[in-house]
């Protein structure tokens, strides 16, 4: 595992580094980033209109904003917009593979945000980047958080929880993700046992982008553990009924084809979940001439799929016949090892949900009968 440069490693996770203005893969990619950002202006009229309408008032002046959101060209446009609104910004990606390095470089070079993101982070680097985005050099935290999947919010909440009950860092956790986050929080607690509680108190609120992150927020709120106000951006109609649906209607095929170059026509594609994202996926695949099977636990969504002419069946029945499997459920271990053992040779399994635990990745990683060959980055056989 490679660690970021300029990071001092002692025992335990790499330390927070207040001296870094940014950490990106290659600052020389900034010119390319700038060109694509200029082209994005015409594709993002809503953001451009926000700049024009609200920019002069600078409603975010004097406020520190942390972002945990895929560091792409489109996100770079959001960052620049927040900057125009007056914010002081630090940013990390919310996914170890989703950063477009030229976007990160462009933002870093022009100084719109202190950005800590690159494509192909390790999980340890990911949590380091998240902490870099949450803490300013003077030790203060954000007034506002822009979150996608809730990892920045989680970091602050877990940090405060550890400060209330330090024994939490001594437990073992199921996922490497949780394990690594807790290792960071253990270090943090040893350095400053009140940091995250203080930071939580000065957060005015978080705006959460995605279904998975929103579930986490409602869960915290129901337990009475939410520490600051939250806006559920996902459930704006103009978000979930548009980007979740129409965005995925285009990006699923893009992703599968970039990964595998296959034709969809004539293939049996199994879409697990017929929510906003599943709807976009199923209709996209049908448009390419694939034969689409849908799996669903919710009878309303299942009925919607049936009325749109999709066969709705179970994964047990679909596993032996599918050529491509797409998880779009927001749920956990929907495709299991047992399902994968029933699949055709060289069946393609992919996830379009926020977290890849929709697929039993631990079965693939840990089963001694599974042999992994990397075809190219993010594509494994």
């Amino acid at each position, binding site marked *: 595992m490679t660690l970021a440069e300029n990071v001092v490693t002692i025992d335990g996770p790499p330390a927070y580094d207040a001296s870094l203005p940014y950490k990106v893969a290659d600052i020389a990619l900034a010119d390319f980033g700038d060109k694509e950002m200029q082209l994005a202006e015409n*594709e993002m009229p*809503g953001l451009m209109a926000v700049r024009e309408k609200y920019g002069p008032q600078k409603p*975010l002046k004097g406020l520190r904003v942390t972002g945990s959101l895929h560091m792409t060209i489109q996100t770079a446009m959001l960052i620049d917009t927040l900057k125009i*609104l007056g914010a002081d910004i630090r940013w990390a990606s919310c996914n170890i593979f989703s950063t477009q390095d030229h976007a990160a470089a462009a933002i870093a070079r022009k100084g719109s945000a202190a950005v800590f993101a690159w494509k192909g982070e390790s999980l340890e680097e990911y949590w380091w980047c998240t902490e870099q985005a949450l803490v300013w050099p003077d030790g203060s935290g954000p007034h*506002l958080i822009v979150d996608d999947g809730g990892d920045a919010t989680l970091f602050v909440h877990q940090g405060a929880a550890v400060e209330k009950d330090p024994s939490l860092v001594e437990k073992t956790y199921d996922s490497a993700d949780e394990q690594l986050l807790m290792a960071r929080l253990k270090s943090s607690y040893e350095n400053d046992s009140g940091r995250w509680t203080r930071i939580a108190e000065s957060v005015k609120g978080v705006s959460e982008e995605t279904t998975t992150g929103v579930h986490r927020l*409602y869960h915290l709120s129901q337990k009475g553990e939410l*520490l600051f106000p*939250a*806006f559920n*951006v996902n459930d704006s109609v103009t978000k979930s009924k548009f980007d979740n649906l129409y965005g995925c209607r285009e990006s699923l095929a893009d992703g599968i084809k970039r990964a595998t170059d296959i034709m969809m026509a004539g293939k049996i594609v199994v879409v697990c979940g017929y929510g906003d994202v599943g709807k976009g996926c199923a209709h996209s695949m049908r448009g390419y001439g694939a034969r689409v099977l849908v799996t669903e636990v919710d009878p309303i969504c299942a009925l919607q799929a049936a009325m749109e002419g999709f066969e709705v069946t179970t994964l047990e029945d679909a596993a032996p016949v599918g050529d491509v499997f797409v998880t779009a459920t927001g749920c956990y271990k929907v495709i299991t090892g047992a399902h994968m053992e029933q699949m055709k040779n060289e069946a393609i399994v992919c996830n379009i949900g926020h977290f890849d635990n929709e697929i039993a990745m631990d079965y693939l990683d840990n089963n001694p009968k599974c042999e992994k060959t990397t075809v190219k980055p993010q594509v494994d056989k």
Partner: protein
Amino acid sequence: MSNSFTNQCLAQIELATGNYETDVYTLPKKLDEEVARLHLARLGVKLSKLNQVQADYLGVPVDGPFKPDHYRY
């Protein structure tokens, strides 16, 4: 992602300028419609407009919000 991120900006402005209790909120429908409105020109959409008689008939303002909160599009 322009829809998503326009919503994000509006939510950030709300949090910055409003005084919210610790809870989970969604943006009001008026702002949701505003996000949609901002994307119409790029796609060459010619939006129709209610006259006052029609607005009164429907029980909505001429400039919206056009649907009740429980409407699911």
